């Protein structure tokens, strides 16, 4: 999904076609205008247990979630301050009984709505009601191209079949469909088939996103880390398919940063063009930001407005721009290109979110990181730690967590 993308302003624009990409511009302003799109994590509850879940290891419990009225107030406020698109995500957003009501409210206040879902809880009636409420776009995650691998990764029996069914309903209801495929060592061999599956499902877009290693995925890194040859093969498959399927399927590709030379421009830079709202109402610079201890995040339940939190809160300003940087970032010619990479990854791997992201070759830890990735990829440790509210459950030989 897009929030894990390394650069939000990914769409290239042709200067001759009368269309400019709004995202890529404007973001260089010192004033940090309100983001165009916001991610609303409605809940951390989810029937799936994917070992690379992007939610924090410390999940928000159901009882702490914002109420329907609180979310509606948030949506109204977002539209008023200039947000144009809302991504309803989770956890599993369809686990909220009020989702249709929230989508309807987003439509009423003029927000373009996108549903990022595992699809397994959807009925045709519910999906139809969401379409009637004005839902603009559906993204369904897939864990593989067939049930053996997919259901094992999801930690849920029959999940894959259900996803296929919901994807077909989505197109029958004339809703645009994006297939999200999160890739790692144990499913990369299915990539070519996943691309064909997306074509067969009449999807408009396919996101091929390599796992980003923080939170749950960091705990599962040894079981997920791809080999360098897998990554090279992946890039070849994606490039070939992108040409062959031009006009049929748009493919967005997120490369894994462990094997990169330069770090990703995470979130387009901390507090520059993105924020998300957690189930309990925290306003966060990225969905993993709460993993950085020592930062206080303001809530929509506080007496501050969302615009104030975005512009003035300590957490957003701590790593904004380049003023916070130490060497080697401080004097680096790329400092305003990648903004030192990912703060959460720097914190997770070095213990200091103010350090250079070790994905960067200029980080003193880069060499060690790359060697470790290679070692883990070559290891035979394929056992998952499934994501859940009790801190994770190790996969056993027979239950696959399902």
């Amino acid at each position, binding site marked *: 999904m897009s929030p894990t993308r390394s650069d939000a302003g990914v769409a290239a624009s042709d200067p001759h076609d*009368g*269309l400019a*990409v*709004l995202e890529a511009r404007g973001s260089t302003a010192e004033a940090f205008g309100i983001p165009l*799109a916001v991610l609303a994590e409605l809940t951390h509850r989810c029937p799936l247990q994917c070992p690379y879940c992007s939610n924090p290891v410390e999940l928000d419990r159901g009882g702490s979630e914002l109420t329907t009225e609180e979310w509606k107030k948030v949506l109204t406020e977002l539209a008023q301050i200039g947000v144009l*698109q809302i991504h309803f995500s989770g956890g599993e957003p369809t686990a909220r009984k009020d989702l249709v009501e929230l989508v309807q409210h987003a439509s009423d206040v003029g927000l*373009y709505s996108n549903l990022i879902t595992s699809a397994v809880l959807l009925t045709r009636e519910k999906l139809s009601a969401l379409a009637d409420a004005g839902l603009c*776009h559906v993204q369904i995650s897939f864990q593989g191209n067939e049930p053996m691998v997919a259901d094992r990764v999801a930690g849920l029996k029959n999940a894959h079949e259900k996803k296929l069914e919901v994807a077909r309903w989505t197109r029958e209801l004339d809703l645009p469909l994006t297939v999200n495929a999160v890739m790692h060592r144990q499913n990369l061999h299915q990539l070519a088939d996943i691309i064909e599956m997306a074509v067969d499902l009449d999807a408009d877009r396919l996101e091929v996103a390599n796992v980003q290693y923080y939170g749950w995925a960091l705990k599962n890194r040894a079981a997920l880390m791809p080999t360098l040859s897998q990554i090279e093969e992946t890039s070849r498959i994606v490039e070939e398919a992108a040409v062959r399927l031009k006009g049929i399927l*748009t493919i967005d590709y997120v490369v894994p940063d462990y094997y990169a030379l330069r770090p990703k421009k995470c979130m387009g830079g901390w507090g520059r063009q993105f924020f998300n709202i957690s189930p309990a109402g925290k306003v966060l610079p990225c969905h993993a930001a709460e993993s950085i201890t020592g930062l206080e995040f303001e809530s929509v339940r506080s007496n501050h407005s969302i615009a104030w939190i975005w512009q003035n809160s300590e957490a957003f300003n701590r790593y904004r721009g380049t003023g916070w940087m130490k060497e080697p970032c401080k004097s680096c010619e790329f400092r305003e290109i990648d903004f030192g990479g990912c703060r959460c990854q720097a914190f997770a791997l070095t213990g200091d979110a103010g350090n250079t992201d070790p994905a960067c070759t200029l980080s003193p830890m880069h060499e060690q990181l790359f060697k470790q990735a290679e070692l883990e990829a070559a290891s035979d440790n394929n056992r998952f730690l499934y994501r859940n509210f009790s801190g994770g459950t190790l996969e056993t030989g027979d239950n696959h967590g399902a």
Partner: protein
Amino acid sequence: MATPRNRNINVSESSRPVLPRHAKLKFDETRQVWVILAPERVLAPDEIAVEVLQLCDGVRSVADMVDQLAAKYAAEREAILTDVIAMLQDLADKGFLTEAREKTS
């Protein structure tokens, strides 16, 4: 497996283009610009593109649109036709235009 259909339309004088459900043209009050909202993207069409897109309602044909623009700007019809088709084809190739479909229901 059958060859998957190409989503992109060929724009001609008889086309009746319309924005697909996932692309919405709207005026952004905060930034005071017209925008096209699409999955994962926000685009800012220029003035001419906005004027043409506002005519794309799935009912008007390209020929009708060109007549209207030629009258409004007292310009030569052929020149406008060429420009409008080129612009619409470009938007269609990017997935921001589709052909109006006959609803059977």
